């Protein structure tokens, strides 16, 4: 049933794929965090008629499957763009739609007195956001952002559909060549499980740290 020979043989291949999995997660998360923030701030500051199309676009991104979005962009962009680049950007934009909502909740959670105080000190809007509102909003939502990072990590195997050689794609290819699927797919699962449990532990620590401090 289980052959250690195939397990050892597939491990380096999988770890090489894991590197791409991590790369896609980190860069995708960076895009999602940045775009999500911009969208959230725009949705709060823009007048209603101008922010409505943005809201609709984000709803659409949230309610349609990541796999279809990946395929769509992959086949729509010119051939010079690599699958990995498409994957990172689509993951980033897809998750920015979720993160924008998290930022928004965080910003709305900042007490009204803080806005009033910034006005009383006649701070310009950019400083109000940068020095008063955002530092308080982001502190509150760090654990939620962490959860989205984990869930993004678990969605990177979807890059399989646009032929990116991340870990699960490699596991499947190894199986196709050797007719041994048991070891590579099980190991891929175990690596995911370990990584998820470790990050979940750190997120819980972050949560405790931020929950215990007032404000």
């Amino acid at each position, binding site marked *: *049933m289980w052959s250690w020979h195939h397990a050892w043989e597939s491990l380096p291949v999988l770890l090489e794929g894991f590197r791409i999995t991590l790369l896609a997660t980190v860069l995708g998360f960076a895009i999602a965090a940045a775009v999500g923030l911009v969208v959230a701030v725009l949705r709060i500051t823009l007048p209603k008629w101008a922010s409505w199309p943005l809201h609709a676009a984000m709803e*659409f991104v949230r*309610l*349609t*499957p*990541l*796999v*279809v*979005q990946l*395929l*769509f962009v992959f*086949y*729509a962009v010119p051939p010079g763009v690599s699958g990995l680049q498409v994957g990172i950007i689509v993951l980033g934009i897809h998750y920015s739609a979720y993160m924008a909502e998290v930022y928004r909740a965080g910003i709305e959670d900042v007490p009204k007195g803080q806005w009033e105080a910034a006005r009383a000190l006649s701070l310009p809007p950019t400083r109000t956001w940068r020095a008063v509102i955002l530092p308080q909003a982001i502190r509150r939502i760090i654990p939620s952002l962490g959860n989205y990072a984990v869930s993004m990590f*678990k*969605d*990177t*195997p*979807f890059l*399989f*559909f646009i032929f990116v050689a991340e870990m*699960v794609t490699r*596991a*499947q290819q190894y*199986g196709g060549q050797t007719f041994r*699927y*048991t070891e590579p*797919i*099980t190991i*891929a*699962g*175990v690596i*995911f*499980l370990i990584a*998820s*449990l470790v990050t*979940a532990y750190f997120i819980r620590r972050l949560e405790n740290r931020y929950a215990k401090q007032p404000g």
Partner: protein
Amino acid sequence: MSNFDALREALPRIIDGIIVTVQLTLGGALLALAVAIAFGLAARLHNPFVRGGARAFIEVFRGTSLLVQAFWLFFVLPAFGIRLEPIVVGILALGLNYGAYGAEVVRGSINAVPKVQWEAAIALNFSPAQRMRRVIFPQAWVLMIPALTNLMIHLLKGTAIVTAITLQDLTFQINRLRESTGDTFFAFGIALVIYFVLAYILTLVMQVVEARAKFKLGRGPSMREIFKLKPDVDEAVTVGRR
């Protein structure tokens, strides 16, 4: 051949694809609900073996990506002599994965029911099973529906991975339409709209479920009141205005 001719020709296949996607969504959602309730309840029990087993199940299925689970059921199980139909693999993978997420929702919602409700049920001399079935669960159910709705939307979107285990679902058929027309925007534009409509229908159904659950607790209008064509005029308001 224009795009719309191609679409007309592909329409029967696309409808077949939609049927596969809907089957997966409904089958997966039913299994996920059963798994969520069973493991959500088990994760609260005092027996350390039952609780530990439930926790292990939840962590494993939450912690290892959906595609890995589908591949495992599809490629690895046959090595152990178990060969399942692709549609069964799809429903199992979706149901177990989202069921594990749902179990946490169920557990959290049951814990969120106010403590006095437990005390009242104990004071009325209800057995533990009666307590859960008649007092606690109906209240927890109202709390968990919004989160479960979100999970179901995720499940619907998750069905798009089944092409990888040879199922010809909506995404598969749309990809064929793209190949035959060569028009990426047209084909995937249609796919996104269909998925969007399916997700929207799912949300509406869940809103009905939520309204029913609230009505049963005496916290909202009945279905008949919601769907009545002529809305009731709130008498207090009218009187106040005069």
